[in-house]
């Protein structure tokens, strides 16, 4: 007989029965046992899990004090140590979805498995699916409560017991930016022709790859005066000091390196290696300045066209880099640049 799991449930003030929009400013609070949709959830969980406490917060209060509420909730969760944390379901309610997502993320980070439920168009789904949260797909409104609770309960039990979780389609959660390689049972060619025929006949078909949406990065506005600006060079070209002291890999980098260029008028061939696996490195080895144009930038510095060049060169390898790793590397380098007071960055790419 498996032991009954301990569950903490989070809902908003509306579902906590405290009222509509007038209750949106209700401060965060906790009570023993179940409240609101927690009753149905408890029924579904049956004797396999017990809701030991319910946390309730007004949507307006949460958005006004998000960090404080998150800290408050985490203090309670640390004390209660539930086997699983359940939030919502929030359906298409935007503010409710954002609070469910944030609290689930905090719980996961503290090692407590979390499950919530939302409609795919809830802003909380956009924001938190990429964080790999388990968000059960629901209808847009509470009309879908029964089905949502059923799926949330089933998934929460599996997660609380650390059981294997099926695919998004099988378990009914929204794709959460995690891909698992599986046998399909049929060669790619057969599946491709079948999908193509369905598409041509205008019959429904399912793409096997969910289209990623990429963040659009608007170019920054021009700097008013470069002649007084401290400039820095950041490159993904994999140009490293000879011997590759920081062991940058030729592909799939997860770290970066910084090298002093203080006092150098140009990069001297032989003192630099190119470890990037995505381009022919011959020209870069013959003249590293053609990858990182230190010679040209020193000219501009002398002519007063740029203020000054930072004494450090920041390097990583872009080849086959994962987006998440590159985002982190970019943020880490940017933090150092900000610390140094850099106002402009030149990013020679390959």
């Amino acid at each position, binding site marked *: 007989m498996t032991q009954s799991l301990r569950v903490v449930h989070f809902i908003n003030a509306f579902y906590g029965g405290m009222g509509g929009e007038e209750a949106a400013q209700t401060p965060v609070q906790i009570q023993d046992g179940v409240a609101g949709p927690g009753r149905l959830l408890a029924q579904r969980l049956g004797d396999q899990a017990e809701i030991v406490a319910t946390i309730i917060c007004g949507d307006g209060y949460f958005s006004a004090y998000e960090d404080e509420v998150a800290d408050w909730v985490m203090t309670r969760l640390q004390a209660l140590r539930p086997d699983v944390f359940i939030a919502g379901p929030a359906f298409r309610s935007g503010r409710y979805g954002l609070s469910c997502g944030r609290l689930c993320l905090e719980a996961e980070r503290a090692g407590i498995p979390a499950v919530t439920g939302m409609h795919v168009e809830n802003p909380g789904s956009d924001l938190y699916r990429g964080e790999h949260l388990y968000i059960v797909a629901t209808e847009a409104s509470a009309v879908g409560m029964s089905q949502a609770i059923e799926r949330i309960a089933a998934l929460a039990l599996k997660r609380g017991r650390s059981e294997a979780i099926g695919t998004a389609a099988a378990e009914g959660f929204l794709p959460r930016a995690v*891909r698992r*390689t599986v046998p399909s049972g049929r*060669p*790619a060619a057969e599946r491709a*022709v079948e999908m193509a025929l369905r598409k041509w006949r205008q019959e429904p078909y399912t793409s096997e790859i969910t289209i990623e949406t990429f963040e659009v990065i608007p170019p920054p506005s021009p700097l008013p005066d470069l002649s007084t600006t401290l400039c820095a060079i950041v490159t993904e070209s994999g140009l490293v000091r000879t011997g590759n002291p920081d062991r940058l890999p030729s592909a799939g980098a997860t770290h970066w390196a910084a090298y002093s260029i203080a006092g150098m008028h140009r990069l001297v061939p032989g003192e630099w290696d190119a470890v990037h696996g*995505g*381009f*022919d490195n011959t020209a870069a080895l013959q003249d590293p300045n053609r990858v990182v144009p230190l010679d040209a930038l020193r000219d501009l510095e002398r002519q007063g066209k740029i203020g000054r060049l930072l004494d450090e060169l920041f390097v990583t390898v872009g080849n086959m880099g994962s987006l998440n790793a590159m985002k982190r590397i970019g943020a880490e380098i940017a933090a150092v640049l900000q610390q140094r007071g850099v106002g402009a960055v030149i990013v020679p790419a390959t």
Partner: protein
Amino acid sequence: MMPGDFSLDVNDFAIHRLVFASQTQYQHGTLSIEREALLAAIAEPQIVSNIEVHLAHPGESCRIVHVLDAVESMVKLSGRSTVYPGHFGSAIPAGSGRNHRLQGLALLVSAEFPEPTSGALSPHESIVDMSGPAAPYCAFSDTANVVLVCHPAPSVTNAEFDAGLHRVKLKAAVYLAQATAALAPETWQTYALTPTEPELPRVVFVDQLHQQGLMAQTFLYGKHTQGLEPTLLHPNEMLDGALVNGNYRQPGRAITYAHSQSYMVRELYRRHGVDIHFRGVVIGRGWQETQFLKERQGWMMARVARLCGADVAIITADVGGTGGNNTIDFMQTIKACEHMGIRTVAIMQESGNPDGSEPTVVDHVPEADALVSVGGIGWRIPAAPAVERVIGGETVRPNLADEPQDASGPLDVGCWYGAIWKRSEIGLSAVDA
């Protein structure tokens, strides 16, 4: 047969066993190979100083390392041109006549280059295990393999050595199949794009080739595809080996064997006249140098597809190997096809880390709404145990950043030789999880 016909009879001789013998001959599924006669037929003494010939069968405790390419053994007994056209004289259009083919046999080339290489233009380690947990996920673990281990003559360049290796493997492919020349085939099939019911959708296979330079290129009729504008091939030209691989990067490399045994050509032929009308193969090169050229490439591919009447296009890059840079050309081709009124499905690999939590596709266009996945290249298979016999070298370097390790020892390799092609064939996919 009319002079301009594209009708090809392929006669297959099944190979189950390979042995060395005093005479090269085929009998009841066994190919006996006279080593000296084979070596005499394929010699390139100016370029390749020494060729070792090894045999490997499925299930053996055997590992083949430094694999550069693999080819089908076949010979053209009648018809225009030759197999692997352009490599044996004039580039006469192939795709007609009668071929003998050794089915279930692969001819592998294993070699290390004499000069140092760098960056994109360097060969990556490629390993085949004939048994054990990795075998189902590497190409040529299920074929009877003749492995040619080639050593460069003193002071030859990489380019000279590479050209020599292509000649060696293709001559060997013809020499071995020649053993069946006088025999009646066991099975045969005629390949021709016969007329179909007019209402069937006209389908083209769009194949984006890999071309970056030495060590990373594809040959069409004996010439690399740098500068190639999209063009049309009859599928029989593919079967005849019009495309030869000179790309040694992992894992998305298209092997010569995978071109002549193209899974799309086979599948579209199988369904020709049943539920589709197979119109042909559009080829062009990926890895174009600029955004303008990548977009142009897409439009030029779509243009050829439309001009040959396509309603539907199925597109792959390097037999499913869409990794980085070439994904942009690939997406532009999908986009252009859709804008030219062609319904398009694309087969792609996914990138990402072992647990699948990193984004797996580096570029996309909204038009790419029908994608078939062959799984993630970051997906880990169990480590392979030590093996009794290694062909091709004593050390391996699965990751260029690591030190070389004992080739016969336990190996934990992400992608084995031909991994993407193999995954397409065995039907791996990926799901949201």
